[in-house]
C-alpha cells in the first residue's frame, strides 16, 4: 500500500472536498429552488412552497414530454441492444474483409458532435426522404438517437466477449447443447450484465439528448430535455424546471445503484 504523509492526506482531502462541492452544490441549489416561492432561482430562497410541484404535475405539456422521452429512449435502447450486440459478436468472433472499417464506423457516431449528427439527419429527413414522400416523423428521432446509442451496447458487450473463455461454448456444444441452447444457457448469462449496463447507458444517453433532438423532432413534439430547454426561456415558468430536475436527480440514483450492484456481483463470481 502506498503510504502518504499527513500533509499530503490533508491536501488530498481538501481537493476532494472542493471537487465534490463544485459537483453537488449546483444540484443542491436546484433541489432547494424547486420549493422556492419566487418564480426565478435565487439564494437563499425567499420562502417555502409546494406550489411548483403541484403545477408541474398538472402540466400536460410536461407529461407529454416525459412520455415522448421514454418512448424515444426505449426505442433507441432496443435498437442499440439488438444491433450493438450483433455487431459485437460479428466483430469479436469472425474475421471478414473490412472488419476494422466496420468497427470504426460503429464507434464514430459517439465522437461526432451532436450538432453534426442533427444537421445530417435533418437534411436527410427533410430534403431527401420527404420530397419522395417518406415521412419519418417520430421514428426518425428514434433512429437518430440509436446511431450513438449502439456504441454503448457495442463497447460493453464487445469488451465482455473478449474476456469470455471460448472453450465455454465448445464445452456446451460438446455436452449436446444446440447453438440456441448454448447462447441462452451459457453465452448470454455471461454477458448479461454488460448487456444490461449497455442498455441502461443507451437509455440514459437518449433520455437526456437535446442537440440531435432539436434537429430531428417533428414539429410540435417535445422530449423532456427539449421541454425544459424551452421552459427556461419562458419568464416566470423556470422554477417548474427545478421540480423536474429534482425528480431526475432522484431517479438517476436507480441506474447507478443497479450498475454498481451488477459490477459487485460480477467481481464476486470471479
Amino acid at each position: 500500500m502506498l503510504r502518504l504523509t499527513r500533509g499530503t492526506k490533508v491536501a488530498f482531502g481538501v481537493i476532494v472536498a472542493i471537487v465534490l462541492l463544485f459537483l453537488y452544490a449546483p444540484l443542491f441549489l436546484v433541489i432547494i429552488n424547486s420549493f422556492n416561492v419566487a418564480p426565478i432561482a435565487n439564494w437563499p430562497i425567499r420562502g417555502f412552497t409546494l406550489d411548483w410541484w403541484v403545477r408541474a404535475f398538472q402540466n400536460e405539456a410536461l407529461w407529454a414530454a416525459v412520455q415522448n422521452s421514454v418512448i424515444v429512449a426505449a426505442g433507441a435502447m432496443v435498437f442499440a441492444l439488438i444491433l450493438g450486440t450483433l455487431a459485437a459478436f460479428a466483430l469479436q468472433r469472425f474475421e471478414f474483409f473490412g472488419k476494422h472499417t466496420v468497427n470504426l464506423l460503429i464507434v464514430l457516431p459517439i465522437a461526432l458532435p451532436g450538432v453534426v449528427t442533427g444537421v445530417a439527419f435533418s437534411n436527410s429527413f427533410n430534403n431527401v426522404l420527404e420530397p419522395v414522400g417518406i415521412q419519418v416523423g417520430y421514428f426518425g428521432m428514434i433512429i437518430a438517437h440509436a446511431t450513438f446509442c449502439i456504441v454503448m451496447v457495442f463497447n460493453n458487450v464487445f469488451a465482455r466477449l473478449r474476456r469470455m473463455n471460448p472453450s465455454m461454448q465448445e464445452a456446451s456444444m460438446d455436452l449436446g447443447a444446440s447453438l440456441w441452447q448454448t447462447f441462452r444457457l451459457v453465452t448470454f448469462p455471461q454477458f448479461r450484465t454488460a448487456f444490461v449496463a449497455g442498455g441502461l447507458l443507451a437509455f440514459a444517453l437518449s433520455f437526456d439528448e437535446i442537440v440531435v433532438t432539436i434537429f430531428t423532432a417533428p414539429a410540435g413534439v417535445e422530449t423532456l430535455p427539449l421541454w425544459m430547454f424551452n421552459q427556461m426561456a419562458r419568464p416566470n415558468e423556470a422554477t417548474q424546471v427545478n421540480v423536474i430536475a429534482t425528480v431526475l436527480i432522484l431517479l438517476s440514483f436507480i441506474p447507478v445503484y443497479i450498475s454498481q450492484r451488477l459490477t459487485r456481483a460480477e467481481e464476486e463470481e470471479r
Partner: protein
Amino acid sequence: MSAPTAPIEPGSTTAAPASSAPDTADRGQGGVELSSVTKRFGDTVAVDDLTLSVASGEFFSMLGPSGSGKTTVLRLIAGFEEVTSGTIAIAGTDVTQAAPFDRTVNTVFQDYALFPHMTIAENVAYGLRVRKVGKAEQQQRVAAALEQVRLSHVADRLPHQLSGGQRQRIALARALILQPRVLLLDEPLGALDKQLREQMQIELKQIQREVGITFIFVTHDQEEALTLSDRIAVFNNGRVEQVGTPREVYEYPQTAFVAGFLGISNLIDAAHAERLTGVAKAISVRPERVRLMDARTEPAAHESCIDGTIVETVYTGPTTRYIVDTADGLRVIAERHNDHAPSDTAPYHRGDAVRAVWVTEHAAVVP
C-alpha cells in the same frame, strides 16, 4: 573408443506396433478411426495425412511437443474443427461432417471450461438438462456422478470456490455423466502441481477402468503418457512418428525424435555406431542401461563400450547421472541407482576416465 566386438544385432525392432494393433472386433462400441486426415490453418499444416485407429476401451495418449498437432487432432475428433480432407469415424459411424453436439464423445478441457454462473450440480447436470432428461433422473445421476469423483459435498458451490484439482474432477464428472463412448482429455492435468497431478493420474486410470470407455488423452508430459496409457502415439510436426505401447515406444523408438522425446536417450549416430556394431545404423541406448567401469576393465563379449571422461555428475535423489564425453565428440549419459549406503559418496567423479558399457542387444536400432 574401444574395439568393437563382432558385428551383432543390437536391440530389436521386432516388437513392432503390429503386435499391439487394436482389436478390430469391438471397434463398433467406442473405437475411433482417422483416415488420411489433414487439417490446414491457412498455409500451416497442423495435421498431415494422419491415419490412426484407437480401439474401444483403450487408454490412448497423444504425446508431443506443443504445436505438434495433437490438440488439433483431439479437436477434430470432438468436432470443434473441420477436417481439410480425410474422414473420422467414431464407433463405426462416419462423423466427419457431424456437429459437436451430434457426436458420442465428450471432452475434458485443459482449462476445464466450467460454467462460472452455474453451481457444480448445475454444471454436471448440464448435458442432461439440454437433452431434456427428467428432473428426478437428473438429480439421481448428478448425485451418482459427484459420488464417483468424491465431491458430493460441493454440489451447491460455484466453480470459482473450488480448488484446481476439484474443478478437474468436476469437469470429468460433467463429461462422464452422458456416458459417452469416447472421452477426450486435453491436457487435463497440466494446470495442477506435481503431487496433485500424480494423484489425479491414478484416479483417472481407476475411473477409466471403472467406466470401461475409450479415453483419448492429449499430453506433452512423456512420463504422464507412459504412466497412464495402453498405447501412445508420438506426434511431431503434424505427423505421428510412432504408435505403440509405453514399453514399445520407450524401449524401441522408431525415430530419433521419439528416442529423444521420451526420457533421456543416448543416440549414437550411424558413423559411431558402425564402429561399435559394424552396422551403419544409429542406435539408442537408455542411460539406465549404461554402466560405468574402470577404463582398464575388459567388457564381456556381449557388451559394447565407449571410453571417455566424466564431465559432470548429477545427483537426482534416487539416481546419479554421469555425463561422459568421448574424445571424438560423442556424449553418453549413464544413470546409476543410488542403492549403496546413504553415506557413501559417488564412486566416480568429474574428470575420471571411465568406460561406458552396455549389453549390446539392449540398444535399439533407430531406423
